[in-house]
Protein backbone atom coordinates (compact mmCIF):
# COMPACT_ATOMS: atom_id res chain seq x y z
CA UNK A 1 0.00 0.00 0.00
CA UNK A 2 1.45 3.36 -0.98
CA UNK A 3 0.82 5.55 2.03
CA UNK A 4 1.92 8.76 0.30
CA UNK A 5 -0.64 8.16 -2.50
CA UNK A 6 -3.45 7.86 0.07
CA UNK A 7 -2.48 11.28 1.44
CA UNK A 8 -1.96 12.69 -2.06
CA UNK A 9 1.55 13.99 -1.35
CA UNK A 10 5.01 13.27 -2.72
CA UNK A 11 7.46 11.14 -0.64
CA UNK A 12 9.77 14.16 -0.44
CA UNK A 13 7.17 16.57 0.91
CA UNK A 14 7.86 18.59 4.05
CA UNK A 15 6.30 17.87 7.44
CA UNK A 16 4.03 20.93 7.07
CA UNK A 17 2.73 19.75 3.67
CA UNK A 18 2.10 16.27 5.08
CA UNK A 19 0.22 17.63 8.12
CA UNK A 20 -1.84 20.01 5.95
CA UNK A 21 -2.87 17.16 3.60
CA UNK A 22 -3.76 14.93 6.55
CA UNK A 23 -5.89 17.63 8.22
CA UNK A 24 -7.69 18.50 4.99
CA UNK A 25 -8.53 14.89 4.04
CA UNK A 26 -9.46 13.98 7.59
CA UNK A 27 -12.04 16.81 7.73
CA UNK A 28 -13.60 15.54 4.48
CA UNK A 29 -13.72 11.83 5.44
CA UNK A 30 -14.90 12.59 8.98
CA UNK A 31 -18.05 14.18 7.46
CA UNK A 32 -18.49 11.49 4.80
CA UNK A 33 -18.65 8.67 7.32
CA UNK A 34 -21.91 10.06 8.71
CA UNK A 35 -23.67 9.71 5.32
CA UNK A 36 -26.28 6.98 4.95
CA UNK A 37 -25.71 3.56 3.47
CA UNK A 38 -22.70 2.60 1.33
CA UNK A 39 -21.39 6.17 1.15
CA UNK A 40 -21.07 6.31 4.94
CA UNK A 41 -19.32 2.92 5.01
CA UNK A 42 -16.83 4.04 2.36
CA UNK A 43 -16.19 7.26 4.28
CA UNK A 44 -15.34 5.25 7.42
CA UNK A 45 -12.98 2.95 5.45
CA UNK A 46 -11.18 5.94 3.87
CA UNK A 47 -10.80 7.61 7.29
CA UNK A 48 -9.28 4.46 8.80
CA UNK A 49 -6.85 4.07 5.84
CA UNK A 50 -5.90 7.73 6.09
CA UNK A 51 -5.03 7.42 9.80
CA UNK A 52 -3.03 4.24 9.17
CA UNK A 53 -1.11 5.86 6.31
CA UNK A 54 -0.28 8.98 8.35
CA UNK A 55 0.88 6.97 11.40
CA UNK A 56 3.07 4.70 9.25
CA UNK A 57 4.71 7.64 7.44
CA UNK A 58 5.40 9.36 10.79
CA UNK A 59 6.92 6.16 12.21
CA UNK A 60 9.16 5.66 9.16
CA UNK A 61 10.32 9.28 9.25
CA UNK A 62 11.11 9.06 12.99
CA UNK A 63 13.17 5.91 12.39
CA UNK A 64 15.08 7.51 9.51
CA UNK A 65 15.76 10.61 11.62
CA UNK A 66 17.05 8.46 14.48
CA UNK A 67 19.29 6.46 12.12
CA UNK A 68 20.71 9.54 10.40
CA UNK A 69 21.25 11.44 13.64
CA UNK A 70 22.82 8.69 15.72
CA UNK A 71 23.96 6.10 13.21
CA UNK A 72 22.19 3.15 11.74
CA UNK A 73 22.86 0.73 14.63
CA UNK A 74 21.67 3.02 17.42
CA UNK A 75 18.63 3.91 15.33
CA UNK A 76 17.88 0.20 15.09
CA UNK A 77 18.29 -0.20 18.86
CA UNK A 78 15.97 2.79 19.36
CA UNK A 79 13.34 1.13 17.18
CA UNK A 80 13.70 -2.21 19.02
CA UNK A 81 13.11 -0.41 22.33
CA UNK A 82 9.95 1.22 20.95
CA UNK A 83 8.75 -2.26 19.92
CA UNK A 84 9.50 -3.64 23.41
CA UNK A 85 12.43 -5.86 22.37
CA UNK A 86 14.78 -5.07 25.28
CA UNK A 87 17.10 -8.05 24.72
CA UNK A 88 17.50 -7.20 21.02
CA UNK A 89 18.34 -3.58 21.84
CA UNK A 90 20.85 -4.66 24.52
CA UNK A 91 22.57 -6.98 22.05
CA UNK A 92 23.01 -4.13 19.57
CA UNK A 93 24.42 -1.83 22.26
CA UNK A 94 26.82 -4.53 23.50
CA UNK A 95 28.25 -4.92 19.98
CA UNK A 96 28.57 -1.19 19.43
CA UNK A 97 32.14 0.02 19.96
CA UNK A 98 31.48 3.76 19.73
CA UNK A 99 29.86 4.65 23.07
CA UNK A 100 28.82 8.27 22.94
CA UNK A 101 26.07 10.18 24.73
CA UNK A 102 23.23 8.57 22.81
CA UNK A 103 24.58 5.07 23.54
CA UNK A 104 24.41 5.85 27.26
CA UNK A 105 20.94 7.36 26.85
CA UNK A 106 19.62 4.19 25.18
CA UNK A 107 21.37 2.04 27.81
CA UNK A 108 19.63 4.04 30.56
CA UNK A 109 16.24 3.33 28.91
CA UNK A 110 17.06 -0.39 28.81
CA UNK A 111 18.04 -0.35 32.49
CA UNK A 112 14.86 1.52 33.39
CA UNK A 113 12.67 -1.01 31.59
CA UNK A 114 14.53 -3.88 33.31
CA UNK A 115 13.95 -2.30 36.73
CA UNK A 116 17.60 -1.33 37.35
CA UNK A 117 16.90 2.22 38.44
CA UNK A 118 20.26 3.23 39.90
CA UNK A 119 22.13 1.98 36.83
CA UNK A 120 19.60 3.83 34.66
CA UNK A 121 20.27 7.11 36.50
CA UNK A 122 24.05 6.56 36.24
CA UNK A 123 23.84 6.05 32.47
CA UNK A 124 21.57 9.07 32.06
CA UNK A 125 23.99 11.26 34.04
CA UNK A 126 26.81 10.05 31.76
CA UNK A 127 24.75 10.99 28.69
CA UNK A 128 24.10 14.45 30.13
CA UNK A 129 27.79 14.97 31.00
CA UNK A 130 28.83 13.97 27.45
CA UNK A 131 26.22 16.19 25.77
CA UNK A 132 25.07 18.85 28.27
CA UNK A 133 23.23 20.91 25.64
CA UNK A 134 20.87 18.07 24.71
CA UNK A 135 17.48 18.94 26.24
CA UNK A 136 16.14 15.41 25.65
CA UNK A 137 18.72 14.01 28.08
CA UNK A 138 18.45 16.78 30.69
CA UNK A 139 14.64 16.63 30.66
CA UNK A 140 14.72 12.83 31.05
CA UNK A 141 17.13 13.03 34.01
CA UNK A 142 15.07 15.73 35.65
CA UNK A 143 11.88 13.72 35.16
CA UNK A 144 13.51 10.57 36.54
CA UNK A 145 14.78 12.22 39.69
CA UNK A 146 12.00 14.70 40.47
CA UNK A 147 8.82 13.04 39.28
CA UNK A 148 9.29 9.32 38.91
CA UNK A 149 11.17 8.87 42.17
CA UNK A 150 8.98 11.26 44.13
CA UNK A 151 7.46 9.95 47.36
CA UNK A 152 4.64 12.48 47.17
CA UNK A 153 3.35 11.85 43.64
CA UNK A 154 -0.34 10.95 43.43
CA UNK A 155 -0.51 7.13 43.45
CA UNK A 156 -4.08 7.04 42.12
CA UNK A 157 -3.05 8.49 38.75
CA UNK A 158 0.36 6.90 38.22
CA UNK A 159 0.49 4.75 35.11
CA UNK A 160 -2.98 5.87 34.06
CA UNK A 161 -3.12 7.91 30.84
CA UNK A 162 -5.38 10.91 30.19
CA UNK A 163 -6.16 11.60 33.81
CA UNK A 164 -7.43 15.10 34.38
CA UNK A 165 -8.12 14.84 38.09
CA UNK A 166 -5.58 16.36 40.46
CA UNK A 167 -7.32 15.14 43.60
CA UNK A 168 -7.46 11.43 44.39
CA UNK A 169 -10.94 9.89 44.17
CA UNK A 170 -12.73 9.61 47.52
CA UNK A 171 -11.62 6.63 49.57
CA UNK A 172 -15.16 5.29 49.85
CA UNK A 173 -15.54 3.50 46.55
CA UNK A 174 -18.18 0.81 46.93
CA UNK A 175 -16.26 -2.41 46.56
CA UNK A 176 -17.09 -5.92 47.60
CA UNK A 177 -14.49 -7.27 49.99
CA UNK A 178 -14.12 -10.45 47.98
CA UNK A 179 -17.45 -11.71 49.30
CA UNK A 180 -16.42 -11.46 52.94
CA UNK A 181 -18.95 -8.72 53.71
CA UNK A 182 -21.76 -10.90 52.34
CA UNK A 183 -20.48 -13.77 54.44
CA UNK A 184 -21.17 -12.23 57.79
CA UNK A 185 -22.61 -8.72 57.89
CA UNK A 186 -23.35 -8.93 61.61
CA UNK A 187 -19.72 -9.59 62.44
CA UNK A 188 -18.60 -6.74 60.23
CA UNK A 189 -21.02 -4.29 61.86
CA UNK A 190 -20.04 -5.43 65.35
CA UNK A 191 -16.35 -5.12 64.48
CA UNK A 192 -16.92 -1.67 63.06
CA UNK A 193 -18.51 -0.60 66.33
CA UNK A 194 -16.03 -2.06 68.72
CA UNK A 195 -12.23 -2.04 68.27
CA UNK A 196 -11.86 -4.47 71.16
CA UNK A 197 -13.01 -7.27 68.87
CA UNK A 198 -9.87 -6.88 66.77
CA UNK A 199 -7.47 -9.75 66.49
CA UNK A 200 -5.18 -10.06 69.56
Amino acid sequence: MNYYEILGVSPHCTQEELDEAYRRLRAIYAEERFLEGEAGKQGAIKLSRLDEAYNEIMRERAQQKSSSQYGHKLGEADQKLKNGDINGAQEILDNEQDRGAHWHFLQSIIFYKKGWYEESRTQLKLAVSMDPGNTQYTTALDRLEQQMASKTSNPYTMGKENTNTQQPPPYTEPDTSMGLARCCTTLCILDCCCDLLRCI
Partner: protein
Amino acid sequence: MYGYIIPDKTKLYNKDFLLFRSFYCGVCKSIAATSGNLPRFSTNYDIAFLAALIHAYKNHMPEYSCEGCILNPFKKKHVVKQSELMQRIVSLNTLLSYHNILDKIADKDKGKLKAKLAKRVMKKAYFSAREILPQADNILQKSFEKLRELEKENSKSIDRVSDCFASGFRDCVVKSFDIQNDYNFEDVIYNIAKFVYLADALDDINDDAKKKHYNPFLARYGQYKNKAELIKEHRQDIEFIINMTINRAIESYNKLNVCEGRDLLNNIFYFGLRRKAELLINSPKKQKRERV
Protein backbone atom coordinates in the same frame (compact mmCIF):
# COMPACT_ATOMS: atom_id res chain seq x y z
CA MET B 1 9.96 -12.25 53.25
CA TYR B 2 9.60 -10.71 56.67
CA GLY B 3 6.44 -8.60 56.84
CA TYR B 4 7.50 -5.55 54.84
CA ILE B 5 4.32 -5.45 52.75
CA ILE B 6 1.59 -4.48 55.17
CA PRO B 7 -1.36 -2.09 54.98
CA ASP B 8 -1.30 1.34 56.58
CA LYS B 9 -3.59 0.81 59.58
CA THR B 10 -4.35 4.52 59.93
CA LYS B 11 -6.10 4.45 56.53
CA LEU B 12 -7.46 0.92 56.67
CA TYR B 13 -11.19 0.28 56.68
CA ASN B 14 -12.38 -2.45 58.99
CA LYS B 15 -13.69 -4.56 56.08
CA ASP B 16 -10.21 -4.50 54.53
CA PHE B 17 -8.57 -5.38 57.83
CA LEU B 18 -10.92 -8.40 58.16
CA LEU B 19 -10.15 -9.43 54.57
CA PHE B 20 -6.40 -9.20 55.15
CA ARG B 21 -6.72 -11.14 58.40
CA SER B 22 -8.77 -13.85 56.70
CA PHE B 23 -6.03 -14.31 54.09
CA TYR B 24 -3.33 -14.37 56.80
CA CYS B 25 -5.25 -16.98 58.80
CA GLY B 26 -6.07 -18.82 55.57
CA VAL B 27 -2.37 -19.12 54.72
CA CYS B 28 -1.63 -20.46 58.23
CA LYS B 29 -4.46 -23.01 58.03
CA SER B 30 -3.44 -24.09 54.51
CA ILE B 31 0.14 -24.68 55.63
CA ALA B 32 -1.19 -26.85 58.48
CA ALA B 33 -3.42 -28.80 56.08
CA THR B 34 -0.58 -29.28 53.56
CA SER B 35 2.48 -29.80 55.77
CA GLY B 36 1.54 -30.06 59.44
CA ASN B 37 1.61 -27.63 62.36
CA LEU B 38 5.29 -26.85 62.80
CA PRO B 39 5.88 -25.14 59.42
CA ARG B 40 3.14 -22.65 60.36
CA PHE B 41 5.84 -20.35 61.78
CA SER B 42 6.70 -19.46 58.17
CA THR B 43 3.37 -17.57 57.82
CA ASN B 44 4.02 -13.89 57.20
CA TYR B 45 2.18 -10.78 56.06
CA ASP B 46 4.00 -10.70 52.73
CA ILE B 47 2.57 -14.04 51.65
CA ALA B 48 -0.88 -13.00 52.91
CA PHE B 49 -0.57 -9.96 50.62
CA LEU B 50 0.52 -12.18 47.72
CA ALA B 51 -2.47 -14.46 48.32
CA ALA B 52 -4.83 -11.45 48.21
CA LEU B 53 -3.17 -10.08 45.06
CA ILE B 54 -3.29 -13.38 43.18
CA HIS B 55 -6.91 -14.04 44.13
CA ALA B 56 -7.84 -10.53 43.00
CA TYR B 57 -5.81 -10.75 39.78
CA LYS B 58 -7.21 -14.14 38.83
CA ASN B 59 -10.69 -12.99 39.84
CA HIS B 60 -10.92 -16.04 42.07
CA MET B 61 -13.48 -15.44 44.83
CA PRO B 62 -12.29 -17.23 47.97
CA GLU B 63 -14.60 -19.27 50.17
CA TYR B 64 -14.64 -18.58 53.87
CA SER B 65 -15.12 -20.65 56.98
CA CYS B 66 -15.51 -19.57 60.62
CA GLU B 67 -12.78 -21.22 62.67
CA GLY B 68 -10.77 -20.83 65.85
CA CYS B 69 -7.05 -20.23 65.82
CA ILE B 70 -4.20 -22.35 67.21
CA LEU B 71 -3.26 -19.30 69.35
CA ASN B 72 -6.83 -18.52 70.39
CA PRO B 73 -9.16 -21.50 69.87
CA PHE B 74 -12.17 -19.82 71.55
CA LYS B 75 -12.37 -16.82 69.25
CA LYS B 76 -13.76 -17.80 65.86
CA LYS B 77 -12.63 -15.77 62.87
CA HIS B 78 -13.34 -15.78 59.16
CA VAL B 79 -10.61 -17.67 57.36
CA VAL B 80 -10.02 -18.22 53.63
CA LYS B 81 -10.66 -21.91 52.99
CA GLN B 82 -8.09 -24.30 51.62
CA SER B 83 -8.24 -24.51 47.80
CA GLU B 84 -5.97 -25.52 44.93
CA LEU B 85 -4.87 -21.90 44.50
CA MET B 86 -4.11 -21.50 48.23
CA GLN B 87 -2.17 -24.76 48.16
CA ARG B 88 0.08 -23.39 45.41
CA ILE B 89 0.53 -20.09 47.26
CA VAL B 90 1.61 -21.79 50.51
CA SER B 91 3.85 -24.18 48.55
CA LEU B 92 5.62 -21.17 47.04
CA ASN B 93 5.98 -19.72 50.55
CA THR B 94 7.46 -23.00 51.80
CA LEU B 95 9.97 -23.14 48.93
CA LEU B 96 11.00 -19.54 49.56
CA SER B 97 11.38 -20.09 53.34
CA TYR B 98 13.40 -23.27 52.79
CA HIS B 99 15.80 -21.66 50.32
CA ASN B 100 16.21 -18.69 52.68
CA ILE B 101 17.12 -21.10 55.46
CA LEU B 102 19.67 -22.88 53.20
CA ASP B 103 21.12 -19.47 52.37
CA LYS B 104 21.57 -18.69 56.10
CA ILE B 105 23.27 -22.05 56.62
CA ALA B 106 25.64 -21.32 53.75
CA ASP B 107 26.70 -18.09 55.55
CA LYS B 108 29.37 -18.91 58.08
CA ASP B 109 27.66 -17.55 61.15
CA LYS B 110 26.89 -18.29 64.78
CA GLY B 111 23.15 -18.25 64.05
CA LYS B 112 23.58 -21.42 61.94
CA LEU B 113 22.17 -23.67 64.69
CA LYS B 114 18.81 -21.93 64.58
CA ALA B 115 18.80 -22.20 60.77
CA LYS B 116 19.69 -25.91 60.91
CA LEU B 117 16.82 -26.56 63.31
CA ALA B 118 14.45 -24.63 61.03
CA LYS B 119 15.70 -26.70 58.06
CA ARG B 120 14.80 -29.92 59.88
CA VAL B 121 11.34 -28.62 60.65
CA MET B 122 10.72 -27.46 57.07
CA LYS B 123 12.29 -30.42 55.26
CA LYS B 124 9.15 -32.55 54.89
CA ALA B 125 7.07 -29.52 53.90
CA TYR B 126 9.74 -28.60 51.35
CA PHE B 127 9.57 -32.01 49.66
CA SER B 128 5.75 -31.80 49.35
CA ALA B 129 5.97 -28.22 48.02
CA ARG B 130 8.61 -29.31 45.50
CA GLU B 131 6.21 -31.93 44.09
CA ILE B 132 3.49 -29.31 43.61
CA LEU B 133 5.78 -26.60 42.12
CA PRO B 134 8.91 -28.27 40.67
CA GLN B 135 9.71 -25.45 38.22
CA ALA B 136 9.54 -22.81 40.98
CA ASP B 137 11.98 -24.86 43.06
CA ASN B 138 14.51 -25.04 40.19
CA ILE B 139 14.21 -21.30 39.54
CA LEU B 140 14.68 -20.42 43.22
CA GLN B 141 17.66 -22.76 43.52
CA LYS B 142 19.41 -21.09 40.58
CA SER B 143 18.54 -17.57 41.83
CA PHE B 144 19.93 -18.18 45.30
CA GLU B 145 23.10 -19.77 43.85
CA LYS B 146 23.63 -16.71 41.64
CA LEU B 147 22.92 -14.45 44.64
CA ARG B 148 25.58 -16.26 46.71
CA GLU B 149 28.12 -15.86 43.88
CA LEU B 150 27.49 -12.12 43.67
CA GLU B 151 27.73 -11.81 47.45
CA LYS B 152 31.12 -13.62 47.42
CA GLU B 153 32.34 -11.15 44.79
CA ASN B 154 31.10 -8.31 47.03
CA SER B 155 29.11 -6.89 44.11
CA LYS B 156 28.74 -3.11 44.30
CA SER B 157 25.68 -2.98 42.05
CA ILE B 158 22.50 -2.86 44.14
CA ASP B 159 20.39 -3.36 41.01
CA ARG B 160 22.28 -6.45 39.87
CA VAL B 161 22.06 -8.17 43.25
CA SER B 162 18.39 -7.32 43.89
CA ASP B 163 17.58 -8.38 40.30
CA CYS B 164 18.73 -11.94 41.18
CA PHE B 165 16.07 -12.29 43.83
CA ALA B 166 13.38 -10.18 42.14
CA SER B 167 13.56 -11.81 38.69
CA GLY B 168 13.76 -15.28 40.27
CA PHE B 169 10.67 -14.63 42.34
CA ARG B 170 8.84 -13.11 39.37
CA ASP B 171 9.59 -16.16 37.20
CA CYS B 172 8.42 -18.46 40.01
CA VAL B 173 5.08 -16.65 40.27
CA VAL B 174 4.63 -16.63 36.48
CA LYS B 175 5.29 -20.37 36.20
CA SER B 176 3.35 -21.37 39.34
CA PHE B 177 0.18 -19.43 38.53
CA ASP B 178 0.13 -19.67 34.70
CA ILE B 179 0.48 -15.95 34.06
CA GLN B 180 0.28 -15.48 30.30
CA ASN B 181 2.18 -12.53 28.81
CA ASP B 182 1.03 -9.89 31.28
CA TYR B 183 4.05 -7.59 31.58
CA ASN B 184 2.21 -5.27 34.00
CA PHE B 185 1.62 -8.08 36.49
CA GLU B 186 5.20 -9.29 36.02
CA ASP B 187 6.44 -5.74 36.73
CA VAL B 188 4.30 -5.59 39.90
CA ILE B 189 5.78 -8.86 41.20
CA TYR B 190 9.33 -7.86 40.18
CA ASN B 191 9.17 -4.49 41.93
CA ILE B 192 7.46 -5.87 45.04
CA ALA B 193 10.14 -8.58 45.37
CA LYS B 194 12.86 -5.97 44.80
CA PHE B 195 11.31 -3.78 47.51
CA VAL B 196 11.30 -6.72 49.96
CA TYR B 197 14.97 -7.48 49.22
CA LEU B 198 16.02 -3.84 49.60
CA ALA B 199 13.89 -3.36 52.75
CA ASP B 200 15.48 -6.43 54.32
CA ALA B 201 18.97 -5.21 53.37
CA LEU B 202 18.22 -1.73 54.79
CA ASP B 203 16.89 -3.22 58.02
CA ASP B 204 19.94 -5.46 58.46
CA ILE B 205 22.64 -2.82 57.90
CA ASN B 206 23.63 -2.65 61.57
CA ASP B 207 23.84 -6.46 61.98
CA ASP B 208 25.69 -6.94 58.71
CA ALA B 209 28.17 -4.17 59.49
CA LYS B 210 28.91 -5.76 62.89
CA LYS B 211 29.20 -9.33 61.60
CA LYS B 212 30.95 -8.29 58.36
CA HIS B 213 28.25 -9.93 56.23
CA TYR B 214 27.52 -8.88 52.69
CA ASN B 215 25.00 -6.07 52.43
CA PRO B 216 24.32 -4.38 49.07
CA PHE B 217 24.14 -0.90 50.63
CA LEU B 218 27.39 -1.35 52.54
CA ALA B 219 29.11 -2.76 49.44
CA ARG B 220 27.87 0.15 47.31
CA TYR B 221 28.37 3.10 49.65
CA GLY B 222 31.24 1.95 51.84
CA GLN B 223 31.69 0.13 55.11
CA TYR B 224 29.93 2.42 57.60
CA LYS B 225 29.78 1.48 61.26
CA ASN B 226 26.03 1.85 61.51
CA LYS B 227 22.87 2.64 59.57
CA ALA B 228 22.46 6.19 60.88
CA GLU B 229 25.83 7.26 59.44
CA LEU B 230 25.18 5.61 56.07
CA ILE B 231 21.71 7.18 55.74
CA LYS B 232 23.08 10.61 56.71
CA GLU B 233 25.63 10.52 53.87
CA HIS B 234 23.56 8.83 51.17
CA ARG B 235 19.92 9.55 52.02
CA GLN B 236 19.07 10.94 48.59
CA ASP B 237 20.47 7.96 46.70
CA ILE B 238 18.77 5.42 48.97
CA GLU B 239 15.45 7.28 48.80
CA PHE B 240 15.77 7.39 45.00
CA ILE B 241 16.14 3.66 44.59
CA ILE B 242 13.44 2.72 47.13
CA ASN B 243 10.91 5.29 45.86
CA MET B 244 11.50 4.35 42.21
CA THR B 245 10.83 0.69 43.06
CA ILE B 246 7.63 1.55 44.94
CA ASN B 247 6.42 3.95 42.23
CA ARG B 248 7.02 1.43 39.45
CA ALA B 249 5.07 -1.16 41.48
CA ILE B 250 2.19 1.33 41.89
CA GLU B 251 2.28 2.30 38.21
CA SER B 252 2.13 -1.31 37.06
CA TYR B 253 -0.55 -2.17 39.64
CA ASN B 254 -2.74 0.69 38.35
CA LYS B 255 -2.66 -0.88 34.88
CA LEU B 256 -3.98 -4.22 36.15
CA ASN B 257 -7.58 -5.20 35.70
CA VAL B 258 -8.27 -5.86 39.37
CA CYS B 259 -11.72 -5.31 40.81
CA GLU B 260 -12.46 -7.38 43.89
CA GLY B 261 -10.42 -6.52 46.96
CA ARG B 262 -9.25 -3.29 45.29
CA ASP B 263 -9.57 -1.21 48.47
CA LEU B 264 -7.24 -3.46 50.46
CA LEU B 265 -4.68 -3.63 47.65
CA ASN B 266 -4.92 0.14 47.10
CA ASN B 267 -4.13 0.70 50.76
CA ILE B 268 -1.10 -1.59 50.62
CA PHE B 269 0.32 -0.22 47.36
CA TYR B 270 -0.51 3.47 47.79
CA PHE B 271 0.10 3.90 51.51
CA GLY B 272 1.55 0.76 53.10
CA LEU B 273 4.73 0.53 51.01
CA ARG B 274 5.57 4.23 51.35
CA ARG B 275 4.92 4.19 55.08
CA LYS B 276 7.20 1.18 55.53
CA ALA B 277 9.90 2.79 53.40
CA GLU B 278 9.76 5.96 55.55
CA LEU B 279 10.07 3.91 58.74
CA LEU B 280 13.00 1.89 57.40
CA ILE B 281 14.94 4.90 56.15
CA ASN B 282 14.36 7.10 59.23
CA SER B 283 14.81 4.51 61.94
CA PRO B 284 18.45 4.00 63.04
CA LYS B 285 17.66 0.58 64.57
CA LYS B 286 16.29 -2.68 63.23
CA GLN B 287 12.49 -2.58 62.99
CA LYS B 288 10.50 -4.74 65.40
CA ARG B 289 7.95 -7.03 63.78
CA GLU B 290 4.78 -4.96 63.33
CA ARG B 291 1.33 -6.39 64.02
CA VAL B 292 -1.50 -5.50 61.69
